[in-house]
């Protein structure tokens, strides 16, 4: 039995809190906001007008523009060109996810081992790009990767190559740029999970005779799995919706679905088809998000001072 504490908010009056509310009373309580609950209304109305309504319009338009029916979806799934775009989107996103994990996991792991000072430095290295404008970063890659950029200069001067490599306006550029953008999103959740893992478990396993590598893979890695799964899904979901980086660093061969949507509007004004593309992307994103929410609290992932 727990001591009856004062309510979170002082109770409004005997009638609201009174003994054993009837069925009707309980229904009333469930449907009608209380004094604080009404404060949700302004934002709710705002989001319904600025967020939900436009999305609903897009959904409707994908079935009605130019003519009612499934024509837009049939166009998309019936054409090899568009299928390529989808495959391309998934391939690039998959590659980006894999690379962020490969770089991010050891990085996050080392953060848990480092002294407070070096951990701070490592965290700063993750946060600086995080807080830097996306366009600044993308522009930086344009400078770095072009034929006379720093990377090619370096490789030429060392003698590894004889003529400049094409690193931009192709898939290499897209992936290099996107991995850099997505790395913080992978490192931060993985680091958060790893920090919560009791390292004494690994020591205990070693004390029980396990070889360090065995102990790491059988004890430590499984315990960090939730963070890894969360990180990879988050990176993958964000990647499939990317527009700016592929548009600036990619070539005509590497069009992702986001770019295709913009092209349909800016170049050919096919509203219905662009809407259908958006709906497809939205559905894929939604399904993946549902998957994430089974592993982690999304709100928590976005909070904690990160964005």
């Amino acid at each position: 039995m727990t001591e009856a504490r004062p309510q979170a908010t002082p109770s409004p009056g005997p009638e609201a809190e009174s003994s054993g509310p009837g069925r009707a009373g309980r229904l009333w309580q469930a449907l009608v906001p209380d004094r604080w609950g009404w404060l949700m209304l302004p934002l709710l109305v705002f989001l319904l007008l600025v967020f939900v309504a436009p999305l609903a319009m897009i959904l409707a338009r994908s079935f009605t523009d130019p003519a009612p029916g499934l024509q837009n979806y049939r166009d998309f799934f019936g054409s090899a060109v568009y299928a390529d775009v989808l495959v391309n989107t998934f391939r690039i996103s998959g590659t980006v996810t894999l690379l962020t994990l490969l770089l991010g996991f050891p990085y996050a792991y080392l953060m848990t081992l480092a002294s407070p000072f070096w951990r701070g430095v490592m965290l700063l290295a993750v946060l600086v790009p995080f807080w830097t404008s996306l366009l600044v970063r993308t522009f930086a890659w344009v400078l770095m990767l072009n034929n006379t950029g720093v990377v090619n200069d370096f490789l030429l001067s060392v003698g590894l190559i004889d003529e400049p490599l094409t690193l931009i306006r192709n898939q290499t550029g897209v992936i290099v740029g996107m991995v850099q953008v997505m790395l913080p999103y992978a490192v931060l959740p993985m680091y958060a999970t790893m920090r919560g893992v009791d390292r004494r478990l690994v020591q205990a396993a070693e004390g029980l005779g396990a070889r360090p590598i065995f102990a790491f893979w059988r004890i430590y890695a499984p315990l960090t799995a939730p963070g890894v799964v969360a990180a990879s899904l988050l990176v993958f979901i964000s990647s499939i919706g990317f527009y700016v980086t592929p548009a600036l660093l990619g070539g005509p061969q590497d069009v992702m679905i986001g770019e295709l949507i913009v092209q349909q509007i800016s170049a050919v004004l096919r509203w219905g088809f662009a809407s259908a593309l958006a709906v497809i992307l939205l559905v894929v994103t939604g399904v993946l998000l549902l998957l994430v929410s089974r592993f982690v609290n999304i709100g928590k992932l976005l909070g904690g001072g990160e964005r």
Partner: protein
Amino acid sequence: MAHTNALAGTGVSIEIDGVVKRYRTMTAVDHVSLTVEPGEFLTLLGSSGSGKSTLLNIIAGFISADAGRVAVGGRDLTKVPPHKRDLGMVFQHYALFPHMNVRDNVAFPLRRRKVAKAEIAQRVQQALDVVELGRLAERRPAQLSGGQQQRVALARALVFQPEALLMDEPLGALDKRLREQLQVEIKRLHRELGTTFVFVTHDQEEALAMSDRIAVLRDGRLVQVGTPVELYERPASRYVAEFLGESNIFTGRCDQGTFVDTTTGVSFAVADHHVGDALVVRPEHVELAAVGATLASGRNAINGTVREVTYLGSGLRVDLDLPDGRRVIARTGTRGIHVPQVGEGVVAHWDPDHALAVADDVISDAKSDPGPDAGSASAA
């Protein structure tokens, strides 16, 4: 303590009349009626879940009762919002405003009452002087020790000369020494101010040490109200006896001055007018004698074997095993008595006038737990 008068209040009565508070699954306060006399120090004592804090919060106006009324100084407060009740309150973890320094914390109630600036400064300083914290006025609560925070909370609750002061386990977060020191200070404040104090605690020693009267609550019901002496010497029931101090309890039947232990069939003499199913004998009334020694006539006696002897400084505590496996505790002085050895057979005896047959209200509710501080040692 020349300044104390600056905070002196006029003690008013608090009348609690048939107050009920129900939650979905339980009744937190069940028809409690109680009058706190003007200037009295009354403690609401009970284990967690007894409804003592709920009752205090109803008085303060944070929780509204489902039935009944609360009047302070004859003024019905049932419909008055908390901020117009004019009752000081000290919260469990002080609830000092972390974004204000000590001075602003203490000035808060005066500012709400639109007291003139100069007067605020003067009264805040006086209040802080009373709790001996005048030099820490610029500190933030986080920069104070627990005991200092407690004093600020007291000053803040008293500075506007409330009609009564409510305290919800105010010493719970402090260590033992500090707690005892503050108990003394709170008593002193009470004596000097003359304000009515209502104090909530689960600590029976604290209740005994501080209160003019104690109201024992159990499962939302008022079990007994009385002075510490009354409660200790004349508990109304086994629950109260076990909750306040240590007791030896025998269960049985009481009839015409004789109490028959139902487990063993042994009978004890008790005062004639007693009725009840539990016999309470306080350990300090149990004396020990060697087997075969002659006892004064009319004394109740029972044989046992010494299990443990504990030296307490002021005396001894002796735990006896009875033949049927139950236990009896005796507290004795160290001088001029037979000091028993572990394993020795002894006779425990007491004056029938010190045995009290009371209602056995514990067995009926096997789940009830007197709480960690009850310190009861049941022999039954």
